[in-house]
Each structure stands twice: as C-alpha cells, then as structure tokens.
C-alpha cells in the first residue's frame, strides 16, 4: 500500500484514503462545440499510458476531499512529487 503525500494536508497518508482519478492535465475544452469529432474523441478516450513518468490525478477522498496532481513512475510505482490542482505540470 503506497503512501501518498496530499499537497493540501501536507502529509503522507496511506493509499486507502485516496482515490485514483485518471491522467492529469487534460483540461476540458472551453468550447466543445467548436471541436471536430476526432479531436473530441481524442479528448474523451485517448490517454498517454507512458512507461515511466506519468502525470495523474488523485483525490484525498477520505481526507480533505481535494483533487490534486502527481507524477508517479509506472515502472517503479514510486511517486516523484504531488502538487495542487491548477499548478503547472511538473
């Protein structure tokens, strides 16, 4: 069970307090109606699935309730860093 650092609580807590929430930095397009079907499908369905550094979202669902971003290595399963939603990509 991983330890996850919540950037809002500023504490490492056990993984069972958190929920995974998919890849990070995929903003909802501001004007979906202006998008082509292909672009919209890419937004909906296509994810990077890298080997190595992965930017992803977590929610401290059984803690402060906040969504935040993290960089986790998909090979070692280690967190490199976690940071608040809205902060630039690390």
């Amino acid at each position: 069970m991983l330890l996850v650092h919540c950037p809002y609580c500023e504490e490492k807590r056990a993984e069972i307090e958190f929920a995974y929430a998919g890849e990070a930095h995929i903003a909802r397009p501001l004007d979906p109606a202006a998008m082509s079907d292909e672009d919209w499908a890419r937004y909906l369905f296509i994810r990077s699935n890298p080997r190595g550094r992965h930017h992803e979202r977590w929610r401290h669902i059984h803690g402060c309730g906040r969504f935040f971003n993290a960089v986790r290595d998909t090979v070692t399963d280690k967190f490199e860093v976690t940071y608040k939603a809205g902060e630039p990509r690390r």
Partner: protein
Amino acid sequence: MSGFRLDQGGRVDRSRRVSFSFDGATYRGFAGDTLASALLANGVMLFGRSFKYHRPRGLLGAGSEEPNALVSVSRGPGRHTPNLRATAVEIYEGLAATSQNRWPSLKTDLGAINDRLGMFLPAGFYTKTFMWPRSFWDKLYEPAIRRMAGLGEAPSEIDPDHYGAVYAHCDLLIVGAGPAGIDAALEASGTSKRVILIDEQDEPGGGALDDPALWSWLNESLKDLAAAPNVTVLSRTTAFGYYHDNFVGAVERLTDHWAEIGSGPREKLWRIRAGAVILAQGAIERPLVFAANDVPGVMLASAARTFLQRYGVAVGKSVALMAAHDSGWRDAFAHARAGVNVAAIIDVRETIDAALLAEAQALGIAVRLGHSVIEVHGRLGVKGMTVARNDGSAATRIACDALLMAGGWTPSVHLWSHSKGSFAWDEALGAYVPDRPNEKVRCVGACSGKWNFGSGIVIDALPTPRNQARIKAFVDFQNDVTAKDIHLAVREGFKSIEHIKRYTTTGMATDQGKTSNLNGLQIASQALGRPVTEVGLTTFRPPYTPQTFGALAGHAKDDLFQPTRKTPIDGWAEEHGAVFELVAQWRRARYFPQGGDDMHAAVNRECRAVRSAVGIFDASTLGKIEVVGPDAAEFLNRIYTNPWKALEPGRCRYGLLLREDGFITDDGVSARLTPDRFHLTTTTGGAARVLNTMEDYLQTEWPELDVWLTSTTEQWAVIALQGPLARQLLEPLVEGIDLAAEAFPHMAIREGTICGVPTRLFRVSFTGELGFEINVPAAYGRALWEQLMNAGAAWGITPYGTEAMHVLRAEKGFIIVGQDTDGTVTPHDAGLDWAVGKKKPDFVGKRSLARPDIVAAGRKQLVGLLTDDPAVVLEEGAQIVADPAQAIPMTMIGHVTSSYWSEALGRSIALALIEGGHQRMGEMLHVPMPGQVIRAKVSSMVFYDPQGARLHV
C-alpha cells in the same frame, strides 16, 4: 524407527510430558517440541507422501522451509487446517494431526503406483496429455488428478474462530530474531526509535537456538530487549509480505499452540508501516541432488543438528554425511560428540581444511574425499547408501539410518525480493545476494550473504556413473521435480528460468522453492551451457509461507463484510414483517407481506392501495446533495442536461446527468429553495459517485464558480405519500403550507412544518399518482412515519416496498438508471430528449451527443414490450430476436430490462432496449426461452395514464 530422544540436551521441558496423536496413533513428547521433533524422538521417519509420485517422504528440514512433512491438524468442527509443516506445529496435549495425500494409509499408499509409472509422468505431462478435449478436462482429468496429486483437504465447515487485525507504526522493523536480528534490536534499543522485532518461531533466537554455546547470550539479550520500553518483540509472527513504502504484512498465531481454545482471536494480522526495515531472515541450507535423495532419513545436515541440539533428538542411530560444504562437517561432529554414531563423512571435494580432517580423525569418523553418494537404500527409511569415487569407480555400500546433506547455503531473500530490491550473483556462494535496495531496507546476517559457516563448492548435481535418465534425483521435493525434468525442459527448448519453472513446476509449490530454487537454476545453467546470471532469477511473491484466509479476512466477513446502511424507518419495517433487499449498501423493505401473502400477492395489494387510496414508502435512501452558493444555478446548468437558471425558487426539476461521453449516469428530482440554494436528489446507488463527479468539475474545471457541495443523504428521512388520498391525509398535519392544487402544483417544493417538525415538502411522484415526498430531519423520521400511519388508518394507508415502487414506476415508463440503462444509453435512446436543453451551448456530455456513433441509426433504444399472452411475465435480461426461425446462433437485437405483473392493467408489462426500437412501434418480436418462444409487441413505454391526468389533481 531409528530416531530417538537423547538422555539430555535440548531446550524442551522434560518435566512436562505432552501426549498427542499422528494418524490415530498416540505418542508422547515434551513441551517445547514440534510435531516433527516429537515424532522423530518416537522413531517415526515417514511423514507424508509426495505430490506426484506418492513417494514416501520424511523430514528434509527443521523449520518453515520444510517441503515434505505437510500435515493436517483438526480440532473440532470448522477447525481443520491442512498443509501445515510438521516442523512448525507446536505440540500440545491432545493435538490430533494426520498425514496427507495417501490412501488408504501412509505406509500402504495405492497412489505410489505413480512412482513406478514415473517414466510416463515427465515434466509437462499434464499439459501435454490432458489438453484435449476440453470437456474431458473439467469432468474427468482434473478431478482424477486432484484426487491423486494433492495437498490436504480444505475445510468444509464454517470457521468458528475470529481473527484480529491491527495497524502498527514503527521507526524500525526487524524481521527475524536470530543473532543478527537481535543484535540490530539491541543496537536500536538504546535510541528513541520505536522498534518492532518479529520472528516466526515459538521463541526468538533463530540459529542461536541450535547452539547451546549461545544460550546464555540469548537469555541476556532477550532480557535486555524486554526491559527496553521502545522495543516490541513478537514471536509466532510471520512477516509474509513486503509491500510499497515499507508496508509489511505479518500474521501472529495466538491460539494454535494452546491445548484449550480460548475466546480470543486465533490469529492477528499486523499491518506494519515502518520508517526503516532490517531483514535478518537467515539462510537455508541446500540439499544435494543425487539418486533417491528423498528417502525418509535423508535430510539437511543443519536440520539434523537443530533436532539434536534444540530438541535433544537424534535423527538416527548411525548417521552419515554427504557434504559439499564445511558446515556439514560441524553438524556431523556435533552428533559424534552427543554420542550418536557417525558412519561416515563423504565429501565431493578432493581437498578439505586440515583442521576439519584432524577433528574427524580425533572423533574416529571415517572420511572419504572425492566421493559421492550414488544410491540410497531403503524405501520407507534409509538403510544404507552406496558411494563411489567421483569418477564412478570404487563403489562401496555403507550402512546408516540417516543421511545428512550439506550442499551450501541460500540467503533467505524472499522479503527483499518482495520489496523489489536488486540482486547480485555471488559465485563463491552459488547464490543471489541482496544488492541495491528499492525501499528503506537493509539485510543483515546470513540473509545478506555474509556469514561464517565455512566454505564449500557449488555443484548442480553429484557425479554419478549411472544413467541420469533412469534415476530420480529430486530438486523440488514438494512438487516432485527431478533433475531429469529440468534437463527435459531444456531439451524441449525452454531457455529462461521463468519458463522452465512454469513447465516443470519447480519452485511453484507452497514452499516457493525455498530449498530447490538454486539447485534448479544451477541444473538449468549447466544444461544450457550458460552462466546462471543469463538463465535468470525467479521472483518471490507474498506470502513467504502460506497464511490462513481467516487472518487475511479478519473481521471483514459475514455481517461485517460490508456495512449495512439502515434508514431511520428500518426498525419499523422490521417490526412489521418487511422482507428486505440490499440496494447498494442500503437495506430496503422490498414488500410487507400480510397474513401469509406471497410476494406476488403483497405487491399487488400494495400497488392497488397506491392507485386507489394512499401508500406510504420509505425513500430515505435517495442520495441528497445540498448545492449552495451564488453560482449554484450556473453550476447545475453546466452539470445537468436541462436548463436550471430559470427555475424559480419553490419549483422542482427532473435532472438528467450524463458522463462526458454522452451516456446517462444518474438522474433525480431537484428543488430550488432560494436563488442560491438547491436540494438535489440522486439515485440510491449513485449518490457518492455523483458527488465525486460534481466535486471534480467544481475543483478542477470550474474553480471560479462559487459553490459548495454537501452530502445530506443521511441528514434527511424521506417519506413518500402516494395516491389519490394523499392530500386529504396530509392536510391536517401540515402547518405553513397551502396544499391546494393551484398553490402547490406538481413539481413544487414548500417549507413548513408537519406534526410540528420542520419539513421540506416536495410535491413529486414516482408512481404517476398525486404524491408528496416529505423530508424531515432524520431523527424525526420514524416518529413521523408512525404519526402518518395512525392518521392514515382511516384512509386505508398501506406501506409499500421497493418491489411495488418498481411496478408503479414501470407502469408510467419511468426509468431506473442502472437497470434500464447500462452505461451505453443516451437521453435519446432512453426517450428522454425532452430533458435535454437544446438551446444550452454546453453541458457535461453535450458534445458527445453529436458524435457519429451516437447519431447513427440502429442504436439500442428503450421501448415498452407487451407480451401476446398478457399472463406471461418476461424474464428480466431475456434476449430478443426479430425472427425466431433463424439459425442458431440467432442475431439478438436487444434485451428485457424491466418486467412486472401490472395489477393496475391486469397484464404483464416490460421495458426493453432494442436496436432501432423507436422505429419498431407495433412490431411483433420474439423472446426465445427454454421450451417456448414468447411473442411480444413493441409499445410505448407509458402503459398507465399516458396523459398524466392523475398527477395534476
């Protein structure tokens, strides 16, 4: 019958005799004995039958590495534990153990025919022979193989024990309380660190328990640790798995060694998060690979010394040693000094340390260097051996009743491997040793590869002049894998140890190859002509030793498997005989039988009451979210499909929630209380998911919106009053709300009091009748329910459950998200176009409603379905076809999602998802069922009161 108890020595308590039974025969041992040591002391050598060949087997080891001596212990109904290692079972008065995998008895086992047929059971035999035909596998091959090749029987009764679980946190966790682990704990005891020291055996000490010279050191050290307030020592506790971020799982065995079963938990699961971990798991001696190296009485030299010095038991009257390593010589010397005859020391090496030779000579032990055992004599026990020079010459028979093997040492790196630490190959040791850590962990003592047991050579198999193909030289004792099997796998083209392992099953038994992995690797490496490091390294996975399901499940079983959520009115329903069902985690009253009603009769009566008088329903499980803030309406406008900004305070709206991919995910009626405050409802099962989704959008997509979301599901009790008499019943009980139709129309909300209790009163209907949903603070729920029952008696008030609710809503064509939808249904598919705000520029899921797949023809659409025979109620989930005469497999065009007997219509009704359903109105379709094909006509989804006249009264 050759082992015996020495007159003195060992750590057993000779003043406390313990009687126990094995396979029905009674034996006596001493307190402190294991089942293995006590049986050995009684002359028992035969402990079990091997997995595949049913060969007689004795003890190989003395600890948790033991592959052969697996036994079952039974102590009453539900307390049957199979596959315990006899070397790890402490004896207690009345212990009843039995051997496994033999029939009719351990000595006369008919399965031993497999041993004679051995040439027909090579590696991969099962896979090659029994692959075809598939149906034979399930019905014939597998059951037969399971009978013949197996472990102990799984218990068939419910386990009456209970199991504890704790989380523990420490700065330093030390796994293994041998000398290295104890030293580490002593060093940390003087600091402020919180230290936990765990050990799998019944007493701490590890290797020191085998060496009387260390006993006083051990006593003093354990006293010091006991006195250290920062150190916790746990015995009988197995660290079975090492997980991320220094999270270690361990099981403490609390009662299995007691003669009387107490009331406490049997075992305790420790979930330990450690700042740092020290692994001090020691090393396990390696067997040597030679013909018949599995005859009972052939065992690890170190194990024999453990029995000798820790338990005061000699494994034989005349023992011999086959060594490739110095450590075995010391074990043989210990036997000689204890008065046990040592028949011979055979060493495969040509030259040996002079001091060892001198000591052997002083003890009068015959020594043969450059020799190997080429055969072991005896079937149920060792009677002697034949040895020969390594070139095969000078074969000589030597009598002995036990043969000790000293093949070198393998560091116990299991937990290190779990933690994904890397390994380095140590040529001198012939073993992988820990290299770079992946966690905050280090290895100390023998498991780090640093120990002082002398030197030796690494050898894949002993030299023999005999035909390798005709001898059984075992590598994996538990899975009956021989050197020959590994050679065969290599000949058949397997090159990686991971593949060889799976093909031959070496190292895949419950012992995870503790004694076999490196011999298997060496043999594969020799056969392939490639260095070991190119052949690979198998990965160890938890658990280190088998653990009970009970310990892993802990309290999470039966009623505590998951929480049962109960509404404030649940107690009333229970007292009034409700039959319950689980909806998500909620326990809901399904129907209220009266006077021997079956479900059908009860549901019909409840439905009639709602349509003709008034019914009362506990809707408290509805998910509820309070949405508050200046931007609340804007937020809902973006989240839901329909427009919310123009909704006036005091009015309600049906909200349809899509995922961004355009499919329906939830729905519910919500009310605007004030310009900046909404009372949302969600489906019973969807509440948490909807709140999570809303929080997600609010926090990460639209943080500029000034809105707060609060779950209020459990703050409100909700009582639905539905039926033409609902208003008359309610009127005298409500204050501050005008219930008149014009003042309080359908889809409106008012705040006031009911029976003196503050209420949010919704005028809404999920039945098609005049209806109200009364929200009161949860604590008042039951009292209000009882008041309404009293006041309603005169109106024929009838409580109804979820089953009647389902029928009533289906008669009106109201969908249940998750039953009539399956995550691939759009608003248009569900006939809910009216709930989509066409003029809204955007909402969650809107763009997807224009995707090519979503607007394509032929999508499955929700429609009504009326059977030709009105008495036939379709099965929910039944498949629908257009042409019942077509060839099988038929083309299925949809399925039934909801189906009921409608008491109001006097016939069956159904909803179904059907390809192009909207274009099929009036079309006759077919539902093939066992024995018949049911005809049914596509219809509108609204079966009852299509004009809605009954609502607006």
